[in-house]
């Protein structure tokens, strides 16, 4: 039975992410709900599903997919061509002089200072990306060559293939037809020239002999194996890039395009799984473009979570902020202005506020645990800063992270894409099969930069990425007994080395909290305040919600309050709540998401909370 269901799910997903036009009842909203329950691991589904959820591909306008993909990939290759450049003669000379001289200050000149500043950024990225997902050998492996991408064709082939200069339509044979990018390794050449030596020895390996050893070889490399910067001569590598070098390029380009954010440690942890999922697509036509596609998915994610990476916004006080970060040179000025503006006002979107949201939610669903932690002076910063800022990537193995992200993306899709506009778009395109008909604001072209923007309904919800908060909350309540019994040190260790593996159960519990909706009170509670608002108040609020449900006032309220009441009742049982049969409370049954087509029509109506009028 479970197999049958799984088979149905796969077939359904294949349709939903397929190139064929969908029937009108297959709305984006329904798709989102299905993704909440997990996207099948089967061939190529998740890649496209994530692209849809993060607004990279228009859900309702499938005819436009090839054009959108191609356009965006071209934009990215343009960035690589413009921003990734090999060191100039002058820079090489300066580097060499600096390496010879013990005191770099002897070389004082503004150009050099700028160069040093830039290389400090590159060096920081370089140091981190090498260590991305170190448990996997994947990132230490070479990117398989493909004639479809100018980034992955081996350097010698590239020259031959360069005739596709007229980067027009894909009328040409399945060769890439993109401009060649001979300088794509320029960034790495600059690091090699700049650095006294290659700390990890990874770039001093013989060209093309990339192995899975990767960073483990550094034990020798550190001790002088890198031979005093001997790696410099090996560049550019003829055999192509390693996967971690691909994500290094993405992060560098992102930092250059978004100087208001730059590079912050941990971004590589967010980019890693995105890139991994795309680069392991069995279909070469997708896999070959993992790098450009990952860049855009990363940008879309960062537009949602960027505030977590901005130090100005760390403090709980600054203004509401809903601007999107867009990889467009045209927006650079506005972006940094916006950032400066934020610093002056009270903000509710930085990491500090997100952690407060978590504690507010905890106070609501489990006042006892909240109070207990508060007594022990366990600040959310001690554990949830990492949970939230890098989206649980450090707490779970990769397959689990990917599963959690299915739900997280399904949630934020409402902000990024906007369910309503997409439904409209879907309607448009089902009425008119014209490829451009359904553009309706979810993706457009920025004239100034000729750049495809990730835009849309950002900021339409009061509480963005609520599911991240819900999931973090579920992580806490799922170990409540251990937390209640343990002392400060045990608690921190438990939360930092999270013991539970059953992510489906956690997602299920998080879903319970999710249907409650976010904290409604306009009052701003900080961690210390919350203790004063005891369980009584929470119960009172729950009771109010219940009564409105009983009177059938509004479906949103009833779902939220019913979920809340249930959560209160369930608390303490510590039972995983993912697998529950429908029956008495079908509304928050996870199973509803897994029901195939037949149940979907009804499911739409009663399923998701509709928060916005």
């Amino acid at each position: 039975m479970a197999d049958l269901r799984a088979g149905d799910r796969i077939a359904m997903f294949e349709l939903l992410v397929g190139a064929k036009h969908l029937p009108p009842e297959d709305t984006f909203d329904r798709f989102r709900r299905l993704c909440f329950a997990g996207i099948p691991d089967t061939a190529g589904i998740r890649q496209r599903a994530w692209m849809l959820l993060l607004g990279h591909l228009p859900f309702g306008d499938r005819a436009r997919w090839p054009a959108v993909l191609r356009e965006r990939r071209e934009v990215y290759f343009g960035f690589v061509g413009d921003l990734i450049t090999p060191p100039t003669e002058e820079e090489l000379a300066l580097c060499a002089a600096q390496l010879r001289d013990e005191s770099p200050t002897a070389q004082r000149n503004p150009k050099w200072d700028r160069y040093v500043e830039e290389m400090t950024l590159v060096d920081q990225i370089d140091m981190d990306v090498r260590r991305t997902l170190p448990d996997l050998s994947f990132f230490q492996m070479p990117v398989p060559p493909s004639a479809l991408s100018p980034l992955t064709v081996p350097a010698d082939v590239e020259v031959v293939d360069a005739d596709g200069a007229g980067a027009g339509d894909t009328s040409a044979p399945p060769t890439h037809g993109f401009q060649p990018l001979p300088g794509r390794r320029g960034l790495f050449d600059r690091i090699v020239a700049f650095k006294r030596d290659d700390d990890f020895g990874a770039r001093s390996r013989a060209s093309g002999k990339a192995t899975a050893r990767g960073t483990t070889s550094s034990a020798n490399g550190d001790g002088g194996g890198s031979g005093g910067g001997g790696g410099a001569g090996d560049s550019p590598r003829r055999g192509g890039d390693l996967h971690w070098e691909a994500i290094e390029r993405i992060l560098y380009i992102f930092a250059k395009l978004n100087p208001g954010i730059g590079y912050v440690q941990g971004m590589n942890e967010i980019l890693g799984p995105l890139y991994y999922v795309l680069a392991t697509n069995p279909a070469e036509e997708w896999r070959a473009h993992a790098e450009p596609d990952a860049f855009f998915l990363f940008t879309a994610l960062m537009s949602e979570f960027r505030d977590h990476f901005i130090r100005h916004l760390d403090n709980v006080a600054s203004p509401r902020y809903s601007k999107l970060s867009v990889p467009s040179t045209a927006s650079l000025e506005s972006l940094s202005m916006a950032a400066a503006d934020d610093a002056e006002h009270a903000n509710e979107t930085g990491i500090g506020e997100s952690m407060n949201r978590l504690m507010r939610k905890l106070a609501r669903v489990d006042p006892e645990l909240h109070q207990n932690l508060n007594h022990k002076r366990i600040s959310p910063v001690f554990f949830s800063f990492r949970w939230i800022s890098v989206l649980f990537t450090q707490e779970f193995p990769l397959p689990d992270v990917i599963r959690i992200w299915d739900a997280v993306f399904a949630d934020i899709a409402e902000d990024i894409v906007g369910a309503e506009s997409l439904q409209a778009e879907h309607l448009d395109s089902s009425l008119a099969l014209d490829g451009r008909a359904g553009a309706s604001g979810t993706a457009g072209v920025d004239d100034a930069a000729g750049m495809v923007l990730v835009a849309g309904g950002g900021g339409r919800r009061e509480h963005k990425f609520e599911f991240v908060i819900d999931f973090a909350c579920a992580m806490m309540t799922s170990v409540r007994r251990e937390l209640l019994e343990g002392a400060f040190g045990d608690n921190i260790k438990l939360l930092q080395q999270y013991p539970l593996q059953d992510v489906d159960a956690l997602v299920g519990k998080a879903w319970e909290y999710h249907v409650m909706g976010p904290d409604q009170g306009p009052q701003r509670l900080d961690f210390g305040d919350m203790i004063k608002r005891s369980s009584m108040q929470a119960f009172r609020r729950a009771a109010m919600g219940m009564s409105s449900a009983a009177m059938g006032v509004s479906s949103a309220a009833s779902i939220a309050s019913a979920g809340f009441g249930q959560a209160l009742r369930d608390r303490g049982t510590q039972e995983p709540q993912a697998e529950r049969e429908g029956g008495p409370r079908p509304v928050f049954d996870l199973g509803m998401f897994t029901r195939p087509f037949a149940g979907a029509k009804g499911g739409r109506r009663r399923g998701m909370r509709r928060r916005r009028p």
Partner: protein
Amino acid sequence: MRGGRKALLKVIILGDSGVGKTSLMNQYVNNKFSTQYKATIGADFLTKEVLVEERSVTMQIWDTAGQERFQSLGVAFYRGADCCALVYDVNNVKSFENLDSWRDEFLLQANPRDPENFPFVVIGNKVDVEESKRQVTQKRAMAWCQQKGNIPYFETSAKEGINVEQAFFTIAKNSLKQEADVELYSDFPDPIKIDGDTSVAKSAGCEC
């Protein structure tokens, strides 16, 4: 009252990104070394039980993130610290030059009772790397430590486990001593309040 109580010491490890803070902590607590530690996000927490002068002590060690962006979190971690280890990489002069601002930032945010005598320890890590790459001499480092009020100085290799135990033992010992002093003070009925802002300059941490 004090003798029987089990001591709890809160230790903060600070320093630039990549100098080896995580490696030091893991070498000390778990006797392990890996080149695969990821960049620390926020702060990692480990504990270790040690015996100092016949007293059982639990060290709570906070290994903090080195990137400047994370410094705004400092106040959450620094408060109530009993000792602070300032770590730099002897092969990276910038990481040494930044010790000043790490120290200032710590004193500013932790706001200890007696900043002049707050127990710091300075650790120059990665001495296993070949001598020709070294950028900070022992002499220079010790001069800095002396100037800052005779901070104990250790040269370590987290990779090879050189001097790590000794450095942390000193941390434990000096923190205990500090704790004892503080308790002595608090025995007085009306303790003199020492303001934390003496000689503490705000570091240029703003990234506007």
